[in-house]
């Protein structure tokens, strides 16, 4: 028997060992996500990729594709819930797009656009968070961190370093830096590291590269994230 699942009624093939996300991406089906990146071990924390598998909610990025799965992805209910989860991320941190260099290139923002999120719905926490501009070439604005751990994983798995980690519990969760001072300048991070570029939001930015592309001409200004995601995350769709 061939390996197939259905996603929103469409038959999608999968290979043994693939997650639902991988099978979907390969088939050109976009499942919204923020903490997932095909090059790194799946994390399963943002929960935007929640799909309904045979009646049960699962994270598509971590759940293995298995014969007989009937997956619901693009439903009204899931879209509504994903929008609310995105709104949670917006009120948890301080995401003030007009003042952020990442605007237009930001995946958090792009997912929100994609989900037609018009407001933040929930009351804001306005947490007090720090800025680390100590490093010569890279800066961190903790206000925009969504704890996706992509920088943690990229540093470990791609750069062969261990610059970042997530610490704390619950709403006190925060990104920490692996240096005795706790500052980025005292780490071995370089601007060419994958970890310095992987941030889906504007939390980690490369200095002196700001506004080289004008607002209005950026990635998501004219293209939706579903299209961009499939183009960049699966070679076949990028041709």
């Amino acid at each position, binding site marked *: 028997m061939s390996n197939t699942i259905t996603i929103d009624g469409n038959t999608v093939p999968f290979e043994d060992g693939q997650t639902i996300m991988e099978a979907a991406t390969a088939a050109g089906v976009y499942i919204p996500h923020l903490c997932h990146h095909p090059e790194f071990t799946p994390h*399963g924390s943002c929960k935007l990729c929640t799909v309904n598998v045979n009646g049960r909610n699962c*994270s598509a990025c*971590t759940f293995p594709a298995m014969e007989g799965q009937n997956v619901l992805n693009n439903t009204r209910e899931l879209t509504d819930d994903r929008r609310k989860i995105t709104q949670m991320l917006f009120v948890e941190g301080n995401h003030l797009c007009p003042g952020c260099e990442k605007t237009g290139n930001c995946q958090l923002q792009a997912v929100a656009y994609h989900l037609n999120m018009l407001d933040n719905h929930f009351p804001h926490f306005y947490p007090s968070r720090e800025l680390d501009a100590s490093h010569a070439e890279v800066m961190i604005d903790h206000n925009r961190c969504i704890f996706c751990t992509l920088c943690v994983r990229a540093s470990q798995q791609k750069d062969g370093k*261990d610059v970042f980690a997530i610490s*704390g519990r619950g709403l006190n969760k925060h990104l920490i830096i692996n240096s005795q001072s706790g500052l980025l300048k005292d780490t071995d991070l370089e601007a060419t590291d994958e970890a310095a570029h992987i941030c889906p939001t504007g939390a980690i930015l490369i200095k002196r590269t700001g506004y080289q592309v004008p607002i209005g001409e950026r990635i998501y200004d004219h293209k939706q994230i579903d299209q961009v995601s499939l183009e960049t995350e699966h070679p076949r769709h990028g041709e």
Partner: protein
Amino acid sequence: MKQFIQDLAEKNHYQATHLLQILRAIQSRYYYVPEDAIEQLAGLLQIPRTQIISVVEFYSFFHLTPRGQYELLISDSITDHMLGKIDLTGYLAKQLNVAVGAVRDDGLVSLDNTSCTGMCDQGPAGLINGYPLTLLDRTRIDLITELINQQKPLAEWPVELFHVDDNIYKPDLLLQQQIDDGSALRTAFKRGMQETLAEIDKSGLRGRGGAGYNTAWKWHLCYEGPEEDAFCEVATHNQQQRYVVCNADEGEPGTFKDRVLLNSYAHQVFEGMTLCAAIIGAQQGFLYLRGEYLHLYDKLQSVLDQRRQAGLLGNNILNEGLNFDIEICLGAGAYICGEESALIESLEGKMGIPRNRPPYPVTQGYLGKPTVVNNVETFMAAASIAVNGGGWFAGVGTEKSKGTKILSICGDCARPGIYEYPFGTSIQSVLNDCGASDVLGIQIGGPSGTFISNQEFDRKLAFEDLATGGSFIVFNNSRNILDIVNNFTHFFAHESCGFCTPCRVGTALLKKQLDKIIEGYGSAGDVVALEELCQLIKKHSHCGLGQTAANPVLTTLERYPELYQSKLKKISYEPGFDLDGALETARRMANRNDAGAHLTQVEEES
């Protein structure tokens, strides 16, 4: 300090898996985990400093800044509140001259709240430097204040302050018929391990932690191991490292039966673990003991020693060729570690963050090896079943819930303590036994369980009706349901590990939204918004904590909708924060108090 840390690391064989145990020792010695200690430890254990920092910041009992030499923590369980905890904490703060959440200027004492310490039948309770204080009252607080101000070492404090009672009121199948040490193992060796597993299967034993997974099946799956091992040679299969873990992270507020089982039935619990090891082929076991039960640690170690001396643990157990030993690992204040995969992470010396599943612990658990994680009571029952046979156990209970369940009963009743009941027993008969009258409702299964009203006392204790890990909290008619729900909701927000968005942000928002309603700032749409938020957290959270965190609201909203509605104002909207209070700083700095310097909370009708 350098030498101390060096010795500590050496004593722990430089194993990063022992990080929690090492940090416990550092915290206990220096009242915090100093930065230098982190640096040194990172080198000695060869782990990044960030792993140490993240662990320190994750667990409630570790601190990056100094706590008092006497660290006082007061249990925040709803039952402690019902016994006057707020008033007592206020008195304590006044007597000791220290604010809640703070360290006194002289560094001698610090005071704070902590999640339920598992002394609900003898509260108000607390912890001092990790050791339990029970039956707190003003007299005891005066004594404690004096002892602290005299700087008396804990060892010289009157023992009655630390006295913990078992309070077993109703023993049944398990508690009545204690087995002889070694008898379960002897019977099992005689009968054969697969045959013994068949007996456990026949008994219908399901996990006693609350989820109710079939125990025999779990052991069978662990023995089988991962799929890729299924076709390997028998010899290779037997070499596979496997682990047995006893989950004694009894953190569900209102539960304390595991404390009693470990205090008085430890042999049998360890015997159950050893039996499991014999069946699945494990050489190493762990008892993950919640940090709040530090007082049991020495006693449990001596039970383990006795068992080693009796040939029931260690190499060549009962001369049957079984090698198995048990290590006790203490937690450090994190409810989430009761979730089995979070517990395993914690055992590995990491933050207690639940893993993605699959793979399940039975195939990839501790250090990625097949691992059985069972509750204290489950192991104890398994040992009894090995001796008495599956039929003995299955003869009691209901069709889907065999045997008995040990309950921790507390709250508004005459005799709070430990009760064992055959599954299928009605709630009413439990209430009769523990001396509860004028009952408003019961929280069954702790905050993550269900609140039932006094119209439902004919319901039964059973997985198919009211499942519980053991928590059974009685509330009489003088209690306010919204206070209860509020306590539970704050508990979950405090204990959320923060891994996934719906639980991390959702539980915090839920706390805000519920506070808004309870504090009287709620208006027309606020209960609907509350319920929407509950559903979102329930549907999308990563693990059981998030999936049940909204239960207190949902189960009471279902039963008492009018209670919530009555808190709402008959207006379309009201701000969730104190508007006039938000002007306070500006008012003070501008030195104004005229009418224009104030705001009403809602627009006045003109």
